[in-house]
């Protein structure tokens, strides 16, 4: 076994630097003075080492506001959408009702509608109805992603047996009580996977905040970093420092949920 795996590990070791290099480069660049970032020959270790970039970023820009905005929006969107997706997936998986196939078809085919198609209409609707405030518009349109509902539906069909639900019904549990005490615990692995996916979707989204948010104190992180980047001087040093800090919430969420993520993805969406 070890002998046959040697080529595999060899390839992986060769690929590792290719994937790691940009991250290391961002980390090292964030500690360099601006002039040194593009110095030739490139050097991995910053010399002179400086924390100046971080200081200027945190004092000269509303960075913590952007950070807070992004993180809070992503956390709220994740919590709500995981709950909504589980609920909707449960409905599609376990209940027979009029129009179920039609609704499921509509939901499923919306998976293949690119976001740019609804970008302009959604923007116009939100602005005309006066709901264009960032807190509302960054969260509410995204609380029921079709992918999440589909994934939950698939998972519930596979892993929640009808007999358990019937037993609970006979014992007199309310319908919502069944969902809360039986279905949700059974769904834990896939809920973790969905949570990480949804968090990253919200945290990384760029185009929607770009058209929606105009007040720079309400920027999300990608938007804030982009303004630093496109400003006159192309402030690579500040962008790199900001990017290093911005990685933090996503990585810590992944670390917290990695077990659920790996289990959930291997039993989840696409297998049906």
């Amino acid at each position: 076994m070890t002998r046959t795996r040697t080529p595999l590990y060899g390839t992986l070791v060769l690929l590792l630097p290719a994937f790691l290099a940009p991250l290391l480069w961002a980390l090292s660049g964030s500690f360099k003075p601006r002039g040194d970032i593009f110095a030739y020959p490139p050097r991995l270790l910053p010399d002179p080492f400086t924390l100046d970039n971080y200081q200027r970023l945190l004092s000269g820009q509303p960075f913590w506001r952007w950070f807070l905005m992004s993180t809070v929006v992503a956390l709220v969107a994740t919590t709500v959408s995981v709950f909504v997706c589980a609920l909707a997936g449960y409905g599609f998986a376990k209940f027979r009702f009029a129009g179920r196939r039609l609704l499921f078809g509509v939901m499923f085919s919306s998976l293949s509608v690119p976001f740019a198609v609804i970008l302009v209409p959604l923007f116009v609707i939100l602005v005309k109805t006066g709901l264009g405030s960032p807190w509302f518009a960054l969260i509410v349109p995204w609380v029921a992603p079709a992918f999440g509902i589909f994934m939950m539906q698939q998972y519930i069909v596979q892993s929640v047996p009808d007999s358990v639900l019937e037993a609970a019904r006979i014992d007199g549990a309310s319908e919502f009580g069944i969902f809360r005490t039986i279905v949700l615990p059974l769904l834990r692995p896939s809920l973790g996977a969905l949570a990480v996916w949804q968090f990253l979707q919200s945290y990384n989204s760029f185009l929607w905040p770009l058209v929606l948010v105009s007040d720079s104190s309400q920027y999300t992180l990608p938007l804030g970093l982009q303004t630093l980047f496109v400003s006159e001087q192309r402030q690579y040093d500040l962008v790199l420092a900001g990017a290093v800090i911005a990685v933090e919430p996503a990585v810590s969420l992944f670390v917290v949920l990695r077990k659920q993520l790996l289990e959930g993805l291997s039993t989840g969406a696409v297998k049906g």
Partner: protein
Amino acid sequence: MHKDHGASLCVVSTVGSDTGQVVQSFQMLLYQRGGAFFDADANLVLDSQEAEETLRFLCEGLRTGPATSRCSSWPDSRTCRGSCTRRAALDGAGRLRTFTTVTLPALKPVTAFVVVTSFIGAAQIFEEPYLLTGGGPAESTLSVTMFIYRAAFQRQQFGYAAAAVVLFVLVFGLSQLFNRLLGIGRASA
């Protein structure tokens, strides 16, 4: 029956990883040929001619029998996990050949799903051209999403941008074509 007619009756099932079943059919075939695991003094006699013949029959049956042909015709990924690759290895297929003729076809529905979703995803590319090139030089790196963004939010031509959505009909059509070619409808229905 074997002694009288020179023929054996058996069903060899290697679906799943049930080794007990394989041993059982070996034992059954061995008895048909008048062989046994042990002689009267409880010595192991598996080096007998009957045992050898039984083994050969089992292997021949695997190689020529109908059981193997199921593998080559797009097996369902859920019913064919380890067993098909193992059977292919028994047939003498190398690792590469096992991968191309058994594993890859078995993964077809999943692969098709990945192809279509990443195609749709890549067709919507926005961040990279927006940040790196701004669509230039001239308009050579202008993506559809960027075109729509530029029309609506930089040039205030909302109607024009909404109409540009028609470009995505092309994307939709192509993904439908992929669906047809790769048979996704059948796989995920």
